[in-house]
């Protein structure tokens, strides 16, 4: 089913159907399970009725499903998809399996923006979303501009190694400023600490719409560059030799990735490991071709983050764990296991 077609490119329709089926099944499961368990069929029925605009009986279940869990699970799924497609794109573009929004420095830049907004109580009354979001997106773009300008100043070519090196240094610098701001944040320390660990609790439909729009626009642009990303993953020189406009493609991908990460960080905080580990796992299963890697990473990232969020909500119920703790814990173990298995297979 997942076999490449004769021309060795993307998935066939059946594979996409299966991906969607698993995604929807996981989504309904995550809405069912919580401090109050709701029957699977009832959950599916309420969601279906709400989707098709049929009258839904008002019960406590309905309120839990439609007002609390569904928007949260939707946001979690979209965040997982966005972070994973971003990670896959970065790892291909920079031909570096360790590249990710965090390696580039965009995540930490976005975090600083959000932390400043929390610490200083920055809100923008005329905008529907809070100051945290606007600040995170603005800082993500700002970080990108600073990193790219510095990289260009250094070697005039935006070489991938230079970008990663500057990204790591920039991340450290941002982290130190975040620590400084946190030290002087007084009573807001708890809010900042919890936010930096990542949480999607309390997400609403507005957040979901924003995430979906970002994923639709920037995710589509990234997906349209699958062949160019293949060329970059083979080598930047080779990409140029076969006719890829390397500077334009690199800039386009970097802008899309920073926009996606900015939106995700503003809504869910810094959720580590998803963008790094999901493309890795997907690459081990489906191979490195971005025509398969990008869509599969989105689906798997969404599913993985929904399950991680489920664990975060239910493991120590009623206490809720930060989702970033779960993703890092599960992701690291899963990664080591798959990496070990694949190496043994090769040996």
């Amino acid at each position, binding site marked *: 089913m997942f076999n490449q077609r004769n*021309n*060795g490119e993307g998935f066939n329709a059946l594979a996409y159907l299966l991906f969607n089926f698993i995604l929807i099944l996981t989504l309904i499961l995550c809405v069912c399970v919580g401090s109050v368990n709701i029957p699977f069929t009832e959950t599916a029925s309420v969601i279906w009725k709400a989707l098709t605009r049929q009258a839904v009986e008002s019960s406590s279940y309905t309120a839990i499903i439609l007002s609390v869990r569904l928007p949260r699970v939707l946001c979690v799924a979209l965040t997982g998809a966005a972070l994973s497609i971003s990670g896959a794109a970065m790892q291909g573009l920079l031909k570096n*399996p360790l590249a990710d929004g965090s390696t580039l420095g965009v995540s930490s830049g976005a975090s600083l923006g959000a932390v400043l907004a929390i610490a200083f109580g920055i809100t923008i009354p005329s905008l529907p979303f809070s100051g945290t979001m606007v600040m995170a997106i603005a800082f993500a773009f700002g970080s990108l501009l600073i990193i790219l300008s510095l990289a260009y100043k250094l070697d005039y070519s935006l070489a991938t190694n230079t970008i990663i090196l500057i990204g790591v240094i920039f991340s450290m610098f941002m982290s130190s400023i975040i620590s400084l701001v946190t030290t002087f944040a007084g009573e807001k320390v708890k809010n900042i600490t919890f936010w930096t660990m990542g949480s999607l609790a309390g997400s609403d439909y507005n957040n979901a719409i924003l995430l979906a729009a970002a994923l639709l626009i920037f995710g589509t642009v990234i997906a349209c560059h699958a062949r160019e990303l293949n060329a970059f993953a083979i080598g930047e*020189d080779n990409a*140029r030799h*076969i*006719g890829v*406009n390397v500077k334009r493609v690199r800039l386009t991908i970097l802008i899309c990735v920073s926009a996606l990460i900015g939106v995700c960080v503003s809504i869910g905080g810094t959720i580590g490991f998803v963008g790094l580990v999901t493309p890795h796992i997907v690459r081990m299963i489906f191979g490195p071709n971005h025509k398969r890697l990008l869509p599969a990473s989105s689906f798997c990232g969404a599913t993985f983050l929904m399950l991680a969020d489920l664990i975060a909500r239910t493991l120590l119920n009623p206490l809720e764990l930060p989702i970033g703790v779960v993703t890092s814990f599960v992701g690291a173990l899963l990664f080591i296991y798959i990496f070990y298995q694949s190496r043994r297979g090769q040996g």
Partner: protein
Amino acid sequence: MTLLDINGLSVRYGDKTIVDRVSFTVDEGQWLMIIGPNGAGKSTIVNAISQGADYTGTIRYLGQDVKKYKPVDLAKQIGILAQNHHVGYSFTVAEVVRLGRYSHAPGIFAKKSNDEERLVEEALEITGLTPIVNQSVLTLSGGELQRTFLAQLFAQNPKVLILDEPTNHLDLVYQKQVFALVNEWLKGEGRAVISVVHDLSLAKAYGTSALLLNRGKTVSFGDMDSVFSQGNLESAYSMDVYAWMREMLSQWT
């Protein structure tokens, strides 16, 4: 007809001049051999032609400055085989070779025609890669990897081939095959080849013109006999090249 016209090409990295006002032309049907000792600037010239290095001077293809070409249009005309290949991920041989067709169908909605697949299969076949078409490039030997990128170049089907040490990692059988293959390819209409080579015997056997460089400067450019004169080679390599070659050859008699 002149295909490539390079005039006053200079490349500097910081204060260091790597290529210093080098000029040469390549006509249709010619195989230009770029020779010279290590550090002569041979690969840097290739890099400049592929727009991978900043340079001064002009590089014209069919009379038009290559900087004015879109990258996809330039790739249809000039194809480059790099000296070294470091692939990061486990792409299959077929996936790498198929990317050679990028410049011919760059649109995202471009459908693959049978013709496209045929060119890819032909490229795989003439480079002897058909049996390992689905193998990961990470598991290939140096020679197989070199042939994979050579196949990508044939799939790209440009008018000018620029080969930076094409026999790198290749054993004698494939060295002979690659040179015979390129020689055959050159017979097509409107084609030319430039190759950077260290093996002067190979250069002498297949070249129709040559450019001899030393420390970024042109020592000699022109037909094979004039460039390969004893004096030119001795001045570039600082040794009696003719005597060395004869000594090597005497081992086989």
